């Protein structure tokens, strides 16, 4: 129940933020959200991640807008402030939510969604490990930067292996769930 409420509260707050356009209000809310996020452990890592997530897009949009407005002789300060505060606030709210939310529990209102999320999260870990193995093997075979043809071939082999593994895993999971009576329980 706690996780579902958290998910709903986060959804409502994220939507509400997009209706606020006053930089002063956005700034106040950002301080509040930052206090929530920074109050916990792993402070530096989370703050760094929030900045990394938004920095590239925000910098590109802000700098382009500043340049275009300066050339046209128009003001740009309020927009740049508004955009950056809003995007940072949304990133902080999302990071705070991801730190506290147990996704499968939040999705418990739908057994299918809950099972899909549990299985998908497990499979993501499995595929990520497999991809890491392939990347490390590729790097170890190429002490010098390889030509683009080899890099494309390496990426192709990674994607093929993932696709094959996914086919096998889908069959295995299906057999495993059937043998444990999962589908009988739901019938």
């Amino acid at each position, binding site marked *: 129940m706690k996780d579902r409420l958290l998910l709903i509260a986060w959804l409502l707050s994220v939507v509400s933020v997009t209706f606020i356009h006053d930089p002063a209000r956005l700034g106040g809310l950002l301080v509040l959200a930052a206090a929530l996020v920074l109050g916990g452990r792993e402070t530096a890592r989370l703050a760094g991640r929030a900045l990394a997530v938004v920095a590239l*897009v925000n910098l590109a949009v802000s700098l382009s807008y500043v340049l275009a407005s300066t050339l046209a002789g128009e003001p740009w300060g309020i927009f740049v402030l508004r955009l950056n505060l809003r995007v940072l606030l949304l990133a902080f709210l999302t990071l705070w939510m991801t730190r506290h939310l147990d996704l499968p529990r939040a999705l418990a209102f739908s057994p299918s969604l809950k099972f899909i999320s549990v299985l998908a999260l497990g499979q*993501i870990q499995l595929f990520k490990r497999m991809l890491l193995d392939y990347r490390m093997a590729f790097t170890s075979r190429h002490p010098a930067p390889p030509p683009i043809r080899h890099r494309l071939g390496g990426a192709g082999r990674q994607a093929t292996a993932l696709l094959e593994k996914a086919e096998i895993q*889908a069959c295995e999971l299906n057999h495993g769930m059937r043998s444990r009576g999962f589908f009988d329980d739901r019938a």
Partner: protein
Amino acid sequence: MHIPDGLIAPQAYLPAFALVVPIWAFSVRKVARSFDEALVPRLAVLTALAFVLSSIMLPLPGGTSGHLIGVGLLALAFGLWPAFLTYSLVLALQSLLLGAGGITVLAINALCMGLVGAGVTLLVYRMLARWSRPLAIVIGVWSGVVASSVLVALALGMQPLLGSDAGGQPLFFPFGPAVTLPIIVGTHALTGLGEGLLTCLVFGVFEKRVLATT
């Protein structure tokens, strides 16, 4: 390619949700009909696959790289509706677990990349497959990526029309289609070609091995 939170006005993303929800419901029904009891494990594995596929680096000339989108590969391997549904789930997971993309723009991203990307890929592939399958895959995936990027550029480019403050400064994304179209579509015309070549390579091998084991 996907749009992050905070750049799109509610006047754009709320109607997009109204549009995408019935399409999600329809696609769940379509996918459930073809996979029956295998639906849950199949969707879960495809979601994980799409999630991880999007982390494969696509090499670009000059030593740089971009990310594989992967929706074209999913569409060719599993069909339009599974591709759309799993890509939507991936976008939701990326937003909920990594803070990447965004939940307010989920519907727009799902429509642009999941539905249109997969749909255009399959349409072009089916039109060209009778002449040359490898070429059909490359052009199909490229067309899907470019079509998605056109829609993303238009979604961003329409934001200045949706509101500005009393001083005339925009409330959301500030540039119109004259800026977004060449930048976003131009970049993706290049990465789309790389993705098309990679998909052709992968799909050929995958098809051979699946046929060999069935």
